[in-house]
């Protein structure tokens, strides 16, 4: 069966979620972004690059794990800050709590892996300044959409960091754990992009880059 035999039919959406997704997609198409073109703010790109460089430059699995734990802790703090902002609806608050819990699970697993390697988890707890060091702007958010857009950039930074780590990690189990965490961050991106009506899956290769 060839793809050109597929007939596009205008039927009713089977679920509200799909209808919402399609509305967002159409809006993006109207704005000239479309699938494959949805871009994060240009201002964030140097920040993403700095994160990737910092993450990839660390030598050895233990160093990469320390960087990853730091990034996951920053994500936990960012979601907690968002939850406490008073800007989120009840539904979005539930999503943010779920995602914070996922980041905590990642941090816990990575900490265990680091200790198995004989390493010591970083003692320093992250601050709001550390969040700014990855993606700026959480301190000036004024709406739920601002928070979702911020979270998209943060999750993109995490995906990019794990993507690059796959060139450096040596241990097979760490490679597999890294991929499964990276894939979870990508799933967070789908929900966050839908929340602000961006194309949920803009690229066939999710590298955390645009």
């Amino acid at each position, binding site marked *: 069966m060839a793809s050109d035999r*597929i007939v596009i039919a205008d039927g009713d959406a089977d679920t509200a979620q799909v209808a919402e997704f399609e509305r967002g997609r159409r809006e993006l198409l109207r704005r000239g972004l479309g699938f494959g073109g949805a871009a994060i703010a240009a201002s964030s790109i140097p920040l993403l690059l700095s994160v990737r460089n910092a993450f990839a430059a660390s030598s050895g699995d233990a160093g990469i794990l320390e960087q990853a734990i730091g990034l996951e802790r920053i994500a936990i703090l960012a979601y907690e800050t968002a939850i406490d902002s008073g800007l989120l609806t009840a539904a979005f608050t539930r999503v943010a709590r779920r995602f914070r819990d996922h980041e905590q699970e990642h941090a816990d697993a990575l900490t265990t892996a680091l200790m198995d390697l004989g390493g010591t988890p970083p003692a320093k707890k992250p601050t709001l300044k550390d969040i700014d060091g990855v993606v700026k702007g959480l301190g000036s958010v004024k709406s739920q959409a601002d928070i979702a857009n911020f979270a998209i950039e943060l999750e993109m930074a995490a995906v990019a960091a794990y993507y690059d780590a*796959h060139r450096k990690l040596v241990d097979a189990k760490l490679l597999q754990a890294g991929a*499964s965490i990276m894939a979870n961050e990508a799933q967070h991106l*789908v929900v966050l992009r839908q929340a602000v009506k961006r194309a949920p899956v803009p690229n066939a290769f999710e590298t955390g880059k645009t």
Partner: protein
Amino acid sequence: MDLDSFLRDPQSRRRFFRTSGVAVAGSSAIFLSACGDEASTPGPAGPDESDEADVEILNSALDLELMAVAAYKAGAAQLRGEVLQVGKLFLEQEQEHADGLASAITDAGGKPNRAKASYDFPALRSQTDVLRFAVDLENTAIAAYIDALPKLGKGDLRATAAAIVANEAEHVSVLLDALGEDPVPFAFVVGRAA
């Protein structure tokens, strides 16, 4: 290939990506030699064992991507409206994966496998059937890539495989959402059913 048992049997999924001479225990030598030099693996001139092993793994991944392309084509007849648009997008993305893998296989001196003439898919009688089958296929691909990932000798290939896993995981989220289910059921995506 008996797809039904393949999807339900983790052992056969693992075998799918297990290549002779690239068992998990033996792969650490490849990692160590590849570590710190993603462009090439040091060694004597002549056929590169790492390349040969990578080609075999990549061709297994290519088989799975070509099956996914065929599945989305077969399922399209049951999809309507917005869900059909999703199906078409995912079909295109699976094709992009297949094209990327074929290029990587050629670059490594191998010959890319071609799509089978036909696939033994289950009956897809409704949109829900297609969505559920697509979730199964995507989860199968995720599990297979995660099994195979550490066996790839080259860092760039491991990174690309991880980027494909992340994209398949995104597909799973959209498909689960369309089924009215939790789009992000687990903190670790390993290709298991929700």
